[in-house]
């Protein structure tokens, strides 16, 4: 959530560039030779069937799992070739919404959001509290500052998780299955929230999902992980992929197996 009104943005440098990425658990290769670019302001969808390695790719992108081969280039540098300190600096510009929210259960919502702020900024407790209220209000949870995660519903936990992901005003927000476990209306509202935040924050969103409705509603760029060939088979705007792709697997996926 950082805006600059003075200087025009420099020649568009991609938010993330992935080069020749191969991921493996031990000797078992999950995905090989991934190459794609996430531009600033994109809502970038990582799509694919269950078990294709979507969540693993996300874990590699956010520094939780080391790739077997290849590079992940953020604007500040290559994630896995950097020293751990530099890696932390890169990752501090990112925020992650985990599948279940992953809120710390021993802390209130305000404390959850305030934790990274109290660690990485020199703000006073009152300012941290105000920032936490603001983030909660942005996700429609005004007034829930002093609730514990166990006292609110699953959908609310997810939104609170989003508020926490935004705590440090990241440039890039990662979402792991944001609509999983939400009713269609809540899932739709979350999609709208993502679009509104994208427009007003000018942040980049990387969303792992297999919800077709979300994919077409919010995505303007994507990569399709093909579980059979164990590599990516297409990338681009999902709506155009649907219109033009000839890859039977991707067609199958984008049309719910009807074609």
């Amino acid at each position, binding site marked *: 959530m950082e805006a600059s*009104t003075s200087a025009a943005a420099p020649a568009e440098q991609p938010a993330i560039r992935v080069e020749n990425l191969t991921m493996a658990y031990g000797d078992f290769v999950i995905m090989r030779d991934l190459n794609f670019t996430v531009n600033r302001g994109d809502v970038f969808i990582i799509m694919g069937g269950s078990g294709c390695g979507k969540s693993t790719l996300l874990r590699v992108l956010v520094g939780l799992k080391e790739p077997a081969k290849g590079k992940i280039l953020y604007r500040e540098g290559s994630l896995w070739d950097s020293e751990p300190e530099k890696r932390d600096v890169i990752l501090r510009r990112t925020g992650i919404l985990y599948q279940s929210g992953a809120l710390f*259960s021993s802390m209130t919502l305000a404390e959850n959001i305030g934790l990274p702020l109290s660690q990485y900024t020199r703000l006073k407790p009152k*300012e941290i509290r*105000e*920032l936490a209220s603001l983030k909660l209000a942005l996700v429609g949870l005004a007034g829930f500052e002093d609730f514990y995660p166990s006292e609110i519903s699953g959908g609310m936990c997810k939104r609170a998780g989003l508020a926490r992901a935004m705590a440090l005003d990241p440039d890039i927000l990662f979402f792991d299955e944001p609509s999983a476990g939400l009713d269609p209306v809540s899932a739709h509202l979350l999609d709208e929230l993502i679009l509104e935040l994208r*427009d007003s924050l000018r942040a980049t969103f990387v969303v792992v999902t297999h919800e077709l409705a979300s994919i077409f509603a919010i995505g303007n760029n994507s990569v399709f992980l093909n579980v059979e060939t164990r590599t990516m088979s297409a990338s681009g705007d999902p709506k155009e992929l649907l219109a033009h792709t000839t890859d039977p697997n991707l067609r199958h996926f984008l049309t719910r197996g009807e074609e």
Partner: protein
Amino acid sequence: MTHTTLPFAPADAPRLEILKDAGMLTLRMTGVWRKDIPLPDPRPVRDALAATPPPATLRFDAAGVTAWDSLFLTFCRAVLALAGERRVEADLSGLPAGAASLLDLASKVPERQGAARKTRHAPFLERMGDLGLAVSQAVVNLFDFVGDVTLACLALLRGKAVFQRSGLVALMYQASVEALPIVSLISLLVGLILAFVGAIQLSQFGAQIYVSTIVGIAMVRVMGAIMTGIIMAGRTGAAYAAELGTMQVNEEIDALRTFGFSPTQFLVLPRMIALVLMMPLLCIYADLMGILGGFIVGVFMLHINPVQYLTHTWQSVPLANFWIGLVHSTVFGILVAMAGCYRGMRCGRSALGVGQATTSAVVTSILAIIIATAIITVACNIIGV
């Protein structure tokens, strides 16, 4: 037009100018408004809004803001809240476009009435009343659990209890073989300690041989059982609480219930059987290790003949003590399994809850072990064994 400029600040720092003109209050903001630089003091804005006559509209002029993040938004939000209180109309058009739409988004869902917590200090009587209710509820819960377990045991006796037989073997293995190293070490050391303490006194009378009696009776009658009880409380009781607690968090226990399984039969019963069967065996093993500890001190420090030491132990420890020890350990097995499972089943649905359940399982088991020992000791005294 009055004009207030706040104290000097370096070029990049956030600066706030308050311009008053007729009914219009303009906040002219310049500089960098970000988390790494402290915000200007908002008090002059409050004063300006509180002035009489109050301004009719509040306008922002943020053309000079070169960079901003959510801290800027919290400032604007606080100002807007003040303006709302004073019924001053606010005009957001002067804010950066992204900021205005975010503020809009933040006010979209109204604050839930009654959601915000007021931390209230309850009066003394109310707190005592709450405590009383909580204690009586806890007692009811405990009796509920004991009743459930009793019913499950009856079902077991009638051969109708439903649980996994293969799981029971694994539980028995965990509660016996895996505990052997720690039980060996601790019992051996307890035997050594008892022998040392006894030896100092007894050697004054030249009655070193009675070290074997002291170690034998103490270990066999009560110490072996207590030491294994406490080890198993810390080892297995805590594991049961954490295991069942995590299952509670993951809704696995609810899943069992909906399948028509009784969680007490399926989860508590096998754990109890495992401990009740294995604790006496562990206790006998601990007795032997303790006697071995005493033997080491007797033979190597006090130079008692090894055969004499062992025969004296055999002759001077009445067999009744052995049975009393076994009764102790069986009771402890029940108590440790019950405490662990009870705390696990009543675990709160969070990581914090699992931690509390584990802690209180260990505390409860040890407390129960000590109380049970006292009761059994008194009872044995009364019946004269």
